[in-house]
């Protein structure tokens, strides 16, 4: 198991490196997308800032506190997005048949798919999240005990791992969804409204918007409440602040199972 993981990391590094070099061929384009990325993610936080020009607190949380929450999740998501953010090209790889070429390589498929279209421009989101988080951590009125300081990287790390697990689960779903007829049925029976938008919009936003909220609530809100000295949501016991790594591990295990099931189904049904 450990050997396989190392093998996977090695393959990931090799392939990601090739994508970075491919991107650097078009240097100007790269710089422009990085700038665009920074701008867009920056606007994201600007919306929150804008709201605070009208109100002093949001649900009882001050600006630095909300920024703390925002920075935590933005950084964690940024890391996951950098690492596995392009996994949704799997669907098109399956459709055009190029997925098969990955299966004849002596490297774990998950690593190869994960590194597919690796894009350094996604560093933009991490840096933006990091800046907000840093500013928030310095601005909140909190006594930084050793426990709280330890909790910080733990939250970012666990959050990133959970997001990664969700990317993997989302990709695993594409093994099933690539059955075009099935997808078509879903849309035809699903109402005409859905057809007014390209299906890709749903894939991405659904996965990124809704699904990510659930485990994150656990990982982000509970420990953040502890750090900021606020009452726990749902009156959870205090030890739950240390649960993020546990939640992350469970998410990984589930995502791993989903991936294996998806891959097995592909290999038994083919294109």
């Amino acid at each position, binding site marked *: 198991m450990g050997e396989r993981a190392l093998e996977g990391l090695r393959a990931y590094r090799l392939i990601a490196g090739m994508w970075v*070099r*491919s991107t650097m*061929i078009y240097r100007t384009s790269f710089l422009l997308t990085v700038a665009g990325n920074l701008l867009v993610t920056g606007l994201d936080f600007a919306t929150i800032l804008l709201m605070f020009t009208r109100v002093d607190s949001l649900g009882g949380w001050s600006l630095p506190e909300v920024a703390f929450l925002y920075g935590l999740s933005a950084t964690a998501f940024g890391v996951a997005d950098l690492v596995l953010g392009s996994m949704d090209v799997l669907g098109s790889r399956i459709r055009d*048949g*190029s997925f098969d070429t990955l*299966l004849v390589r002596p490297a774990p498929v998950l690593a190869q798919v994960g590194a597919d279209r690796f894009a350094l421009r996604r560093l933009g989101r991490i840096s933006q999240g990091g800046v907000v988080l840093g500013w928030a951590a310095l601005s909140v009125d909190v006594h930084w005990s050793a426990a709280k300081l330890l909790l910080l990287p733990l939250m970012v790390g666990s959050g990133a791992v959970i997001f990664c697990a969700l990317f993997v689960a989302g990709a695993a779903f594409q093994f099933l969804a690539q059955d075009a007829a099935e997808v078509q049925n879903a849309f035809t029976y699903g109402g005409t409204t859905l057809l007014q938008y390209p299906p890709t919009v749903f894939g991405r936003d659904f996965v990124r918007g809704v699904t990510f909220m659930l485990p994150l609530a656990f990982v982000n809100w509970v420990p953040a409440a502890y750090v900021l000295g606020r009452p726990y949501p749902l009156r959870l016991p205090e030890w739950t602040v240390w649960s993020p790594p546990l939640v992350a591990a469970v998410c990984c295990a589930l995502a791993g199972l989903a991936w294996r099931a998806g891959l097995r189904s592909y*290999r*038994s*049904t083919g294109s």
Partner: protein
Amino acid sequence: MFIEVDGVEKVFEVRKKTGFLKRERRQVRAVDTLSFTVARGEMVGYIGPNGAGKSTTIKMLTGILTPSAGRLRVAGIDPSRERTRLAHRIGVVFGQRTTLWWDLPLIDSYRLMHRMYRIPDARYAENLDRLVELLDLGALLDVPVRQLSLGQRMRGDIVAALLHDPDVLYLDEPTIGLDVISKARVREFLRELNVERGTTVLLTTHDLQDIEQLCSRVMVIDHGRLMYDGPLAGLHEVGESERTLVVDLERELPPIEAGGSARVVRVEGPRQWLAFPASESAAPLVARIAAEYPLVDLSVREPDIESVIATIYAERTTA
């Protein structure tokens, strides 16, 4: 035996809509109790019409797909169980999709193979030099793949598939879309590879000339079943296929009386078409005609694979 396929089946489940919310499940047998063996160093052509089960077989042999039933071994390895271990022993060239890195110089793709397959440095350098020279790619190593022609890219893909010294090479339509010179170069290379390295080669193709010039053995598959397994000449006999000799005479003449099993099938001005069994040599026929008629030009047309297979298939079903 190097490749063993024993009673292998592949069944896909296809779901068809039969009414509102109603779906019918239907099983499609892409490969049906297929059995064959390939010895080390053999060069086998694997042919059949589209949808006959060719790619499904190749996908099972390369470990991409898991068979529904039967036993499969390549170099003693069960492909679907030990996919990554098998990967070190096989090379795969998918004719219509490149595995090279589009925006990067050709050499970069090879460096990736070097590290991904953990090819020892000395062997990598030696293989690269040899392959690049044989396939005449030396001047193109620093050119981005997107700037290569189709033929150059195909040669590039073949190099990429062979850097790790695989024991068996699968080629899926290796000459499709290539010009005559590129085709000849690829064939010449494959022949040398097979003779000098003893690499086992299994190739699927629509081009009968690929088979003719490369393979001592041909397997024909249709509807997931092996219809023929033997030398190409035998295939023509079994299929009773005919080659066509197109003869241009100096002037319009009555149909040529060539004797033997040849007969005129069409006359159009000074041009005449003669059909003769594909298993016979064209030389005596040409000599006879040249001796007795004012010959300007001539050419031989091979029977196309589809019609040969169609004949075999018709015979099997009526028998």
